[in-house]
């Protein structure tokens, strides 16, 4: 009956339900530990990522990439005869949770190596923690130039970046401005209002203007927003030669729909949304002619990349939608090689060893760190033509 909350049986039942829900969800979602089956002391690696929340689909694929690498290494006897163990913390894509997740992994789980999260703001927030606590931080997803600027000789020798930063993408893009591939030389930006969006915009503006192009406007929007007709109307009125977007997959799909609705036929150059099968299936004809800029695509034609794709599909049952799973996979292998080279799992020794590795990447580039602890793998500019992804150009990362 409504209102009968003083009944002890009702109260007891509610307590049981709350406990079940709490323990159940906590067990299933909060911390993911992939433990090896060997009896030897494992080498623990931490991973902080938005495993639930808005970016979770790509993040779950990144986790699969990391797990696949861990399994491969452990199946081959581990590193220094010891298996690797992955402990993942879910930060839900929230920077405050990234910091608390990183601290937990370091202080409670005792990890000496940490793979960073999916937001540049999060990576920037945990870089001082890595410096203070002398933990190797491997940034495999985020591309704000501030991260590489502050790493290595920039002041933080404990942070290493394995993916290109926005300057690399901007350089590659600017090299195509005023060519037959990108005949336009004026652009409007549409970027989400976070650290990465603003940093990426600034990098592109710098290189496009250096290449003789002009910027008609830079427009930022709340990441949670779903309505773009007002911004697109403004952009249409400016009449640029193209629109450069720095958005999420959801936002990009809406932008393409609403741009079509407003009669906008400008080419869209997207940074950060992978040109994967799910995007093409969801966007249909609206994705025709869409550009993408990333360090990896499934169509990059190397033997190693083909092997990676086959293994990933077998391991996870999914096809990579963007570069995150590949990057996580290669980062774990790079770390394994560094630990092997160091001859111990001492964080300082591994940090030094990382600065000396030179290993091939599946995309045909290499993982070799410069004085800012940045590995200059390739960047690719791709385009969707006839519902297929094709590589337009590649450049240095």
């Amino acid at each position, binding site marked *: 009956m*409504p209102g009968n909350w003083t009944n002890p049986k009702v109260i007891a039942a509610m307590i049981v339900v709350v406990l079940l829900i709490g323990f159940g969800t906590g067990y299933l979602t909060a911390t993911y530990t992939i433990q090896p089956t060997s009896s030897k002391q494992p080498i623990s690696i931490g991973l902080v990522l938005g495993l639930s929340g808005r970016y979770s689909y790509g993040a779950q694929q990144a986790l699969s990439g990391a797990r696949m690498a861990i399994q491969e290494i452990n199946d081959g006897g581990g590193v220094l005869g010891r298996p690797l163990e992955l402990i993942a913390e879910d930060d839900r894509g929230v920077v405050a949770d990234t910091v608390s997740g990183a601290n937990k992994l370091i202080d409670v789980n005792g990890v000496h190596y940490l793979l960073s999260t999916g937001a540049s703001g999060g990576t920037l927030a945990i870089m001082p923690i890595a410096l203070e606590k002398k933990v190797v931080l491997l940034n495999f997803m985020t591309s704000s130039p501030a991260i590489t600027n502050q790493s290595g000789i920039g002041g933080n020798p404990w942070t290493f970046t394995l993916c290109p930063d926005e300057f690399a993408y901007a350089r590659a893009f600017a090299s195509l401005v005023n060519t037959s591939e990108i005949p336009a030389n004026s652009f409007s930006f549409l970027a989400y*209002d976070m650290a990465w969006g603003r940093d990426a915009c600034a990098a592109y503006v710098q290189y496009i203007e250096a290449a003789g192009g002009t910027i008609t406007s830079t427009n930022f929007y709340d990441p949670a927003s*779903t309505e773009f007709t*007002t*911004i697109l109307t403004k952009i249409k*009125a400016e009449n640029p030669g193209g629109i450069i977007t720095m958005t999420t997959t959801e936002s990009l799909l809406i932008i393409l*729909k609403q741009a079509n609705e407003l009669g906008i036929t400008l080419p869209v150059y997207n940074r950060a949304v992978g040109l994967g099968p799910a995007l093409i299936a969801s966007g249909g004809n609206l994705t025709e002619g869409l550009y993408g800029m990333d360090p990896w695509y499934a169509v990059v034609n190397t033997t190693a990349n083909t092997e990676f794709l086959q293994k990933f599909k077998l391991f996870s049952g999914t096809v990579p939608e963007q570069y995150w799973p590949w990057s996580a996979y290669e980062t774990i292998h790079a770390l394994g090689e560094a630990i092997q080279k160091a001859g111990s799992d001492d964080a300082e020794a591994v940090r030094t060893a990382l600065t000396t590795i030179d290993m091939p990447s599946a995309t045909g580039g290499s993982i070799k760190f410069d004085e800012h602890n940045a590995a200059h793998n390739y960047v690719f500019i791709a385009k969707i033509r006839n519902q297929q992804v094709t590589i337009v150009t590649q450049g240095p990362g």
Partner: protein
Amino acid sequence: MDPIWQILVNGVGLGAVYGLVAVGIQLIIGVSGVPNFANGQFYMLGGYVLFLILGFVGIGYFPSLFLCILILAGIGAIAERISIRPLMERPRSAGLISTLALGMFIEGLILILFTAEPKTINTPYSGIILSIGDVSLSVQRIIMAVGGVGAFVLADFFVRKTKVGKGLRAMSQNKQACRIFGIDIFKMSRIAFMLGVALAAFAAGLVVPLFALSPFMGSFIIFKAFAVVIIAGIGEIRGVMFAALLVGLTESLASFYIDPLFRDVTAFLFMICVLLIRPQGIFGEKSDLLFAK
């Protein structure tokens, strides 16, 4: 050339979106006094149910929309029984927290079942674009606007002219008096909640073909819808249409002439101004249901 007509059309379209979600909230809050913070998630759920019906049943857009509304109304009846009815004699804050929790539950469930990967719904109308002078809009958006007006007119007629609607209005004025006169307040609460959720589903069915479907799409729109409700005045369905239009137009104008980031602030600034000048809302009466027992 200043695209003022496109800006105004955009604003009307925006207003229709907010109004469609807000009218369902208005029905529920007017009757039960509980601000249904789960309405955004019911709106999202309506989108996913429509996605499934279109994908697996294959009965066409409008029949699918009708079926979606019926399904969500049924879900609304169950949700009301679990989250609102037990708390009807409790302070309003209990119902508020209950609907917040309900919304989180729905969002989490959809995230587990469908993942965060966005999906799209295409109708035969979303790809047909009409251009009149400098103004472009899709037939789907026209359907949305017409559907929105239709929903307002029907909801207003229902509340003012039908026996059940008069019962709902009576309940919003004085629950105790309703009991004395033999009006079943639990039945009224259930009907109001079902109607509110059904309207949210109707809104989703009209709007989602213009956007993308994601488990988080309800979280953002719910706050705008509440701003519209407060600007209109608690319980004022007629006022919702006008307030939604005002908010939509203001946002569209602010986005173009000031800055796109300013757009999302506009609704709440507008709400604050209205509350300062006329706390009961533009169309509201001085008795504030939110604070009355």
